[in-house]
């Protein structure tokens, strides 16, 4: 079997390796580049506007003479920061709410799930815009806007998992051994759903990055002078029609490639978590 051909059951080691490589390189870039190449967010160079890609500026320069490569790296840095914090915040809310609903059951569960349904019925980008409109532009309002609108799917996953686990005999055994509800939750149920919740969080990261760039593109995200992938595409929209493709294309690739790579890694993790596959391996 050639490595490019997916294994039966959907495992694709090549995709996983490529994704891991891309994530590693970009992670190194966003962590190390600011140490060597500081970026003055406000600086412009009107003598070097819209230079096409060259050795000096591999991704060219934008309409204000700013280096596109450096701004892409800084943009990815802020996008990933927002994406990761928002996704893990959302997963944390989702896990807490889902575990509480699944554990308490009954009226509490129905009440919580109706709230989840209500939130789900509104387009979450619009809900996010409502939240962001309440604050001055900045990184934290964007994180808040994404985090507060993306906990619903994790809530459903964790609740379903807790509902299926809490009927297990080992929970009965814990009850018989004198465990309180809180002890059962913290000792037996939450540890069991953590891999699922962690996976949900990682799967949310690309989505949160897209949201951040979409909000910035709409002019609702980060302040417009700040290097952010959404801001860069928004800024260079006009020059695209004049044939200057580089200030738009490279930020676009910086959105798509890392998010697909993260999604690829999360997909590989999900396959490892898949209980059916695991049980096959154990047999």
């Amino acid at each position, binding site marked *: 079997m050639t490595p490019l051909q997916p294994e039966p059951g959907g495992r694709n080691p090549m995709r996983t390796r490529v994704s891991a490589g891309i994530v590693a390189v970009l992670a190194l870039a966003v962590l190390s580049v600011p140490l060597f190449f500081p970026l003055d967010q406000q600086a412009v160079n009107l003598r070097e506007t819209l230079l096409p890609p060259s050795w000096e500026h591999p991704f060219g320069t934008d309409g204000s003479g700013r280096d596109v490569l450096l701004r892409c790296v800084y943009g990815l840095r802020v996008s990933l920061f927002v994406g990761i914090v928002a996704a893990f915040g959302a997963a944390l809310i989702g896990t807490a709410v889902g575990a509480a609903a699944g554990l308490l059951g009954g009226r509490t569960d129905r009440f919580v799930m109706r709230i989840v349904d209500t939130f789900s019925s509104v387009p979450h980008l619009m809900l996010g815009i409502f939240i962001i409109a309440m604050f001055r532009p900045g990184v934290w309002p964007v994180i808040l806007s994404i985090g507060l609108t993306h906990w619903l799917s994790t809530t459903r996953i964790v609740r379903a998992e807790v509902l299926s686990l809490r009927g*297990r*005999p*080992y929970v*009965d*055994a*814990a*009850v*018989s*051994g*004198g*465990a*309180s*509800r809180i*002890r059962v939750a913290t*000792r*037996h149920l939450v*540890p*069991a759903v953590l891999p699922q919740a962690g996976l949900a969080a990682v799967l949310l990261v690309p989505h949160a990055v897209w949201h951040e760039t979409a909000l910035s593109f709409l002019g609702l995200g980060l302040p417009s002078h700040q290097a952010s992938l959404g801001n860069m595409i928004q800024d260079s929209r006009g020059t695209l029609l004049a044939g200057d493709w580089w200030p738009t294309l490279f930020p676009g690739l910086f959105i798509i490639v890392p998010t697909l790579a993260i999604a690829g890694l999360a997909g590989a993790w999900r396959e490892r978590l898949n209980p059916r596959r695991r049980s096959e391996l*154990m047999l």
Partner: protein
Amino acid sequence: MPSTPEASGSAVQREKGPAPALELRSITAGYPGRPPVVRDVSLTVPAGESVALLGPSGCGKSTLARVAALLHRPDAGSVSLHGAPVTGWRYRAPRAQRTSIGFVFQQPRTAADPRLTLADLIAEPLRATRAVPRRDRAAADEHVRPLAASVGLTGDLLTRRPHEVSDGQLQRACLARALVLRPSLLICDEMTAMLDASTTATLVNAVESYRAETGAALLAIGHDRPLLTRWCARLVDYPALPVPASAGPRPPSLRETAHHH
């Protein structure tokens, strides 16, 4: 004057001896949306005695066992433990009442949290009830080691997780877990159904030596008549054919069909 259990009991109990360890009266129990699986069943386990409940698979024995262990609230009927009526089940049962019953499940695989080592599995009731400090491994070990030895678990197995041991070894750990809080009543629901003869013998011996030491009562549930005949003082047959409440005479209660061996 020697103090006896009767001395603190009521006048009625002084005449009749100590209150039964477990008394189930007219229990009807089942699961939502289905007809009840246990109908109007009564059963008594006298203090310190061993009673075996025999019946075919799927007849409701396990549900009755869960009712008796305060894990499943019956739809009707009453339960009392050592003369004290039970008013709540599961988390609503007082902790002392819940832990006065040791429960061993039929399937050790599903009754063991796959994340805990066998040592943690056995010690978990001690930690849950704060009988030992939760982070004090040495204190828990003091309780776990002798108990593990009494059910035939060697020390190296205690660091393993459930998927690394056999069903028999895991059931030994589950029995040790049921005994770790020194219950005054032990309920074994088909404890040995999955096991080979030598493990069965070890577990039965472990239960009997625990009972000899503490005077605990036993309710053993199963379908293996020769084993239960040798194990328990009294055998009770579960009503073979539960009759729907609306049709025909009501099934005889267990007490009426009980016979001594």
